[in-house]
């Protein structure tokens, strides 16, 4: 169980944004992605998760072990907290374990409709999804948006103890310090030259 990325180039809207990204993650490793807005953090994470094809390069990790989480949580407002989590657990062939609710401080909210939760509580519910799907390689895009300091620490603790500590891998795009001892990859040097070949269809116009 490890993640290898070699010479990866990614494009957004047909325009190359990053090229030559390479890194390796061993079990238990986390990697923090940094870089200014628009550098391509989200695009890189979506490409790694397999939601869009890369222009070139290799991404290698065991099949059916990756999970993606972004600003949008996939939370249904009309379902309760436990119903939301049970759904994602069942889709991934598991069951909802109450310890996840404790890890993300959702025990008191378990029967509330997700639509009645505050933004931070919804975010915690969205992150709790990561705890029920049993995936080993997590691609997290700004996981701590709208979380308070206490919840950020709670999430960081879960990530360190329950995920990385169990041999999981996480690639995280974030601007705040999660308190994880993880290497930081600054994406600025990988910015693609605007006329880089491969993504432009000007030749066809």
């Amino acid at each position, binding site marked *: 169980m490890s993640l290898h990325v070699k010479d990866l180039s990614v494009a957004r809207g047909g325009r190359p944004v990053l090229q030559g990204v390479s890194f390796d993650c061993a079990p238990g490793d986390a990697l923090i992605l940094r870089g200014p807005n628009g550098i391509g953090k989200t695009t890189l994470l979506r490409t790694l998760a397999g939601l869009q094809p890369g222009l070139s390069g290799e991404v290698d990790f065991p099949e059916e072990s990756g999970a993606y989480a972004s600003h*949008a949580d996939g939370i*249904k407002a009309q379902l309760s907290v436990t119903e939301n989590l049970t*759904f994602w657990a069942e889709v991934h062939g598991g069951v909802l374990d109450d310890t996840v609710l404790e890890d993300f401080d959702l025990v008191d909210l378990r029967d509330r409709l997700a639509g009645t939760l505050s933004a931070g509580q919804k975010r915690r519910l969205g992150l709790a999804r990561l705890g029920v799907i049993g995936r080993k390689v997590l691609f997290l895009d700004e996981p701590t948006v709208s979380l308070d300091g206490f919840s950020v620490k709670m999430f960081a603790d879960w990530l360190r103890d329950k995920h990385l500590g169990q041999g999981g891998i996480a690639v995280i795009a974030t601007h705040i310090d999660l308190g994880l001892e993880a290497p930081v990859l600054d994406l600025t040097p990988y910015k693609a030259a605007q006329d880089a070949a491969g993504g432009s269809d000007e030749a066809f116009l």
Partner: protein
Amino acid sequence: MIALLKRDLALAVRAGGGFGLGLAFFLIVIVLVPFGVGPQAELLTRIAPGILWVAALLAALLSLDRIFALDHEDGSLPLLATSPLPLEAVALVKGVAHWITTGLPLTLAAPALGFLLNLQPSAYGFLLITLLVGTPALSMIGTFGAALTVGLRRGGLLLSLLVLPLYIPTLIFGAEAVRRGADGFSATNALVLQGGITLGVFAFLPFATAAALRVNLR
């Protein structure tokens, strides 16, 4: 797959899920037709099979744009795409869930509404059967159209334009089978062709739907 079906059905019947919307639309259209046509029982009898089928088709159209739009808005779609469930299965489940919440109620309500249009007594059985065979195709074709237009602002209108022409064969054979059956002719040919369309649609469109979703997720 079962989990997704259960969730979609639960969402449909909860507040704001839109369950019953198509059914109410169907009811209103059928009630309006006699007012528009006038109190000529014979004329109503003649047009009843066609009106019932067209109304059912439009009612099914009403809720199509919700199939993927809601999952797209709240970000469920990329999460489903990275789950162990193949997108083809997601497409199939979405089509089936749409049929259970829209096509099935329409089918069951149609005989009661046939009464309002003075439908021939001999036609009720055929109406029920053709709707039962035909409405799943409407849902699956609609799911394909919804996948093509997911993420588009105001995609609902474009969706209707894309989907309605694809509904034509099902409509022709459906209404024809009811007419022929009501007049005492053999409706087998029309029914078999309609069934063939439904089976073909369920065999191929989940793949096309998944392909369309993959493109739209990029």
